[in-house]
């Protein structure tokens, strides 16, 4: 299997003395849909900035499909596409000009640049807006414009830095479908997001970064298997005032129409349903209290932060 991205001992200390990356190692295989998660200020954007040459690294190496970003700069960059977190195009240029110009930076002849731009703008539903100035686009359209721009040179590795931030749910879902489509077509994708259900649904492998260190790097299935308990919300038909006691399960009455149940991974929900049914409590619907990945993410980050804080106090 070819490695799409290989990061070794990557370190970054800013001029202020702040150590943003403390020597991270990371490998992403070709064809993967990889999640890079972490709280704000964890080092995600610094890592992406270094990969894209927007930030100078202090130590370490980065290879894209085996090509070092310093020694084989040109070839490494050709394989890389980036959708940044913030809008970074000229607001005064037309949509079509932004995409065609980007193709030109990769050396694509004008005719081919126009064809590719049309293809991706159509795919992302922006072709009708091609002659509009970028500043007149809605937030969702601007995000899609950045995706079209990142794809115009058809990179083998695409980095999406919070591509769905501030996007409504309908558009978010259509963007998920599009991301899956290009991933299935062979593009390796690295995704950073604060919507953890997005990462859980789309990504096969995951790394969690906190305080400049990788605290977890595994496949999504194994990570989710580490969830020790899951909390469900049961909406009941009618109302109850007294909460029934069910052996081995923690129940909490949220309000007279809603019960919260904590279930360990070695348990199942059947006894809960049976006993509630015996007490004539009818369950209308059920949902997870929080996303499973979110639960794990919070506990891993807290664990790591507490550990580091303890280290500092010593």
């Amino acid at each position: 299997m070819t490695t799409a991205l290989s990061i070794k001992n990557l370190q970054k200390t800013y001029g202020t003395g702040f150590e943003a990356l403390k020597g991270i190692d990371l490998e992403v295989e070709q064809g993967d849909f990889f999640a890079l998660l972490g709280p704000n200020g964890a080092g995600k954007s610094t890592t992406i900035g270094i990969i894209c040459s927007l930030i100078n690294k202090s130590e370490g190496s980065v290879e894209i499909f085996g090509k070092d970003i310093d020694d084989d700069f040109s070839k490494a960059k050709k394989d890389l596409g980036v959708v940044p977190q913030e809008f970074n195009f000229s607001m005064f240029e037309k949509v079509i000009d932004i995409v065609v110009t980007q193709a030109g930076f990769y050396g694509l002849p004008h005719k081919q640049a126009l064809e590719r731009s049309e293809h991706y703008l159509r795919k992302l539903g922006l072709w009708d807006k091609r002659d509009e100035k970028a500043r007149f686009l809605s937030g969702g359209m601007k995000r899609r414009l950045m995706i079209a721009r990142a794809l115009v040179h058809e990179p083998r590795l695409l980095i999406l830095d919070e591509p769905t931030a501030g996007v409504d749910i309908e558009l978010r879902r259509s963007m998920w479908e599009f991301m899956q489509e290009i991933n299935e077509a062979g593009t390796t994708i690295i995704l950073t997001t604060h919507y953890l259900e997005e990462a859980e649904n789309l990504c096969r492998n995951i790394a969690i970064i906190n305080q400049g260190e990788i605290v977890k790097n595994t496949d999504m299935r194994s990570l989710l298997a580490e969830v020790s308990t899951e909390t469900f919300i049961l909406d009941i038909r009618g109302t109850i005032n007294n909460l029934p006691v069910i052996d081995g399960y923690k129940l909490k009455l949220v309000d007279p129409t809603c019960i919260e149940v904590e279930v360990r991974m070695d348990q199942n929900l059947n006894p809960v349903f049976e006993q509630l049914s015996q007490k004539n409590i009818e369950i209308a619907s059920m949902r997870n209290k929080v996303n499973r990945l979110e639960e794990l993410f919070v506990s891993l980050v807290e664990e790591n932060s507490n550990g580091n804080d303890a280290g500092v106090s010593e």
Partner: protein
Amino acid sequence: MSWREKWVAFVTILSREIRRYMRIWLQTLLPPAITTGLYFVIFGNLIGSRIGEMGGYDYMEFIVPGLIMMAVITNSYANVVASFYNTKFQRHIEEMLVSPVPNYIILTGYILGGASRGIIVGIIVTIMSLFFSDLSVENVWITVSVVLLTAILFSTFGFINAIFANSFDDISIVPTFILTPLTYLGGVFYSINLLPEFWRSVSMANPILYMVNTFRYGILGVSDIDVTWAFIAIAIFIVGFYTYALHLLNSGRGIRS
């Protein structure tokens, strides 16, 4: 990147620069034409007719080359400093930084983009000057080459200013406090032979004096200085500024954390 791809990238940067100043021609091409037109009317026609001759020529004829050169210098500089600073400010410089385009292509694209505006404004001012004086060119090669080299030199200078600039104030400091005084004192409106010995020597340290006089030599055939030295000085400045600008770009000064 192959040479063909680099050429495409260069043309892309250059054409984007040209598209930018053409799109806002009311801010970029029209004002210098109006300002220089006023110079022609006020200094050339109204005041100039009372001054008489300067350097053996009618005052209007004397100031035309200087005013053309002044327009070329200020517009070449202004284009690059504004455009590249805006690219940093709006962050679309990242479009180029993430791509494989080498830094020297980025630099050359911006410099020639700025130089092209300087030359277009120079042509506009030259056409306007035809309404006020009978302009004849003594030496076409010297005239054209000194305009091209000066436009390139001040575009490069503008690029360096844009790299160091952290705010919009920073891009107006050099034009206001350095470029404009040097241009006005660079023999645009007078011959330095009119100055006392001390101030004539001081004026010789002004690089713009050499450019204005070389251009005047190309048009009128007279100059206060030796044009060969002027060409050598301009070439040295271009090589020095270009090398420094490329070094700044490679180190990521002002554009990479």
